[in-house]
């Protein structure tokens, strides 16, 4: 089984222009969208990485604007978390797992959130990626080009909107049930984002 350091060094050797990032024991490779299929195919065929199993495809939405969590250093000792984006991105994360060796690594692809488009990994993992990419498409609106059957999977087929995006409300959306026109807005419990 390759350790995280060995894998990082090996990946840096093969793709030295890609950013690899090791944090909390997780190895994440940041891949631009146009190189995704190349990296996936390489990871699947390579002897050391041997990524036979595509475990997971998920999405995270980072909307445009500033996201600042302040005062962390004084209360917790952590650095202040500060990101600011002019262009919101949807980050699509892949988890590749090797069965024989037992290690796993993650790939991260960023795509702009007003027109999110990522090549579909069904080109490399034809069956494993089917449901996962349909879910990311349903929840975030990402268009996986080349996916054979891209339609909504969890929400009803005629639903409007992509629920897991940050600009989609938690609740309070209108569903025309005849006897009650308004579903009350959710009780978000007024949990403000706080830092200790």
């Amino acid at each position, binding site marked *: 089984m390759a350790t995280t350091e060995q894998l990082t060094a090996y990946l840096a050797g093969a793709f030295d222009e890609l950013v690899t990032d090791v944090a909390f024991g997780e190895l994440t490779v940041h891949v631009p969208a146009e190189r995704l299929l190349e990296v996936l195919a390489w990871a699947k065929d390579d002897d050391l990485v041997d990524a036979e199993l595509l475990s997971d495809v998920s999405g995270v939405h980072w909307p445009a604007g500033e996201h600042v969590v302040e005062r962390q250093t004084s209360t917790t000792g952590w650095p202040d978390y500060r990101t600011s984006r002019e262009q919101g991105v949807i980050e699509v994360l892949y988890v590749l797992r090797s069965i024989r060796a037992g290690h796993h690594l993650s790939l991260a692809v960023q795509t702009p959130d007003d027109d999110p488009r990522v090549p579909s990994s069904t080109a490399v993992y034809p069956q494993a990626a089917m449901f996962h990419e349909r879910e990311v498409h349903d929840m975030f609106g990402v268009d996986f080009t080349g996916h054979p059957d891209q339609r909504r999977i969890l929400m009803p087929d005629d639903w409007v909107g992509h629920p897991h995006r940050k600009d989609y409300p*938690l*609740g309070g*959306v209108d*569903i025309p049930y005849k*006897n*009650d026109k308004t579903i009350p807005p*959710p009780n978000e419990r007024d949990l403000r984002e706080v830092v200790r």
Partner: protein
Amino acid sequence: MGLEDKLPSGLLLTNMERFVNYARSASLWPATFGLACCAIEMMTSGGARYDLGRFGMEVFRASPRQADLMIVAGRVSNKMAPILRRIYDQMSDPKWVLSMGVCATSGGMFNNYALVQGVDKVVPVDMYVPGCPPRPEMLIDGILKLHEKIQGQTFAEQASGMPGQRPQLPLAQGV
């Protein structure tokens, strides 16, 4: 049975009502509408320790046409709601609905876009059993109270639920 619409209840039919209601409540057959965690507790209450067979209810009919009671056990998503309504419509009268668990009663802890906030927005409910999930004893308590409710019903009230006339829902006027 049109006679009892016109007579004030209790005039000719008291014993008949009591007999019919007793028969109805003593063998309510549930339709399988188990959705999520509450379905497991419903299956458990049909199992050996909390035996629903004591109340004549161990036969969970798969076909809604053969069932009297729909126990909505679990969270009803917006995708599932039309199907819930369709199954309810397929059940033949007399029929009752028991909403099991807080997700069916009011949306539960999931106050969000995905769930119907209470199945009484979709079907008329006769008994609400809260809990997450309700213990089998709680479910049986709800069922027994429903039995009492059925036994207290007169034919005239029951007639208003006959085909062609839906009972008034509590929220029908757009609360």
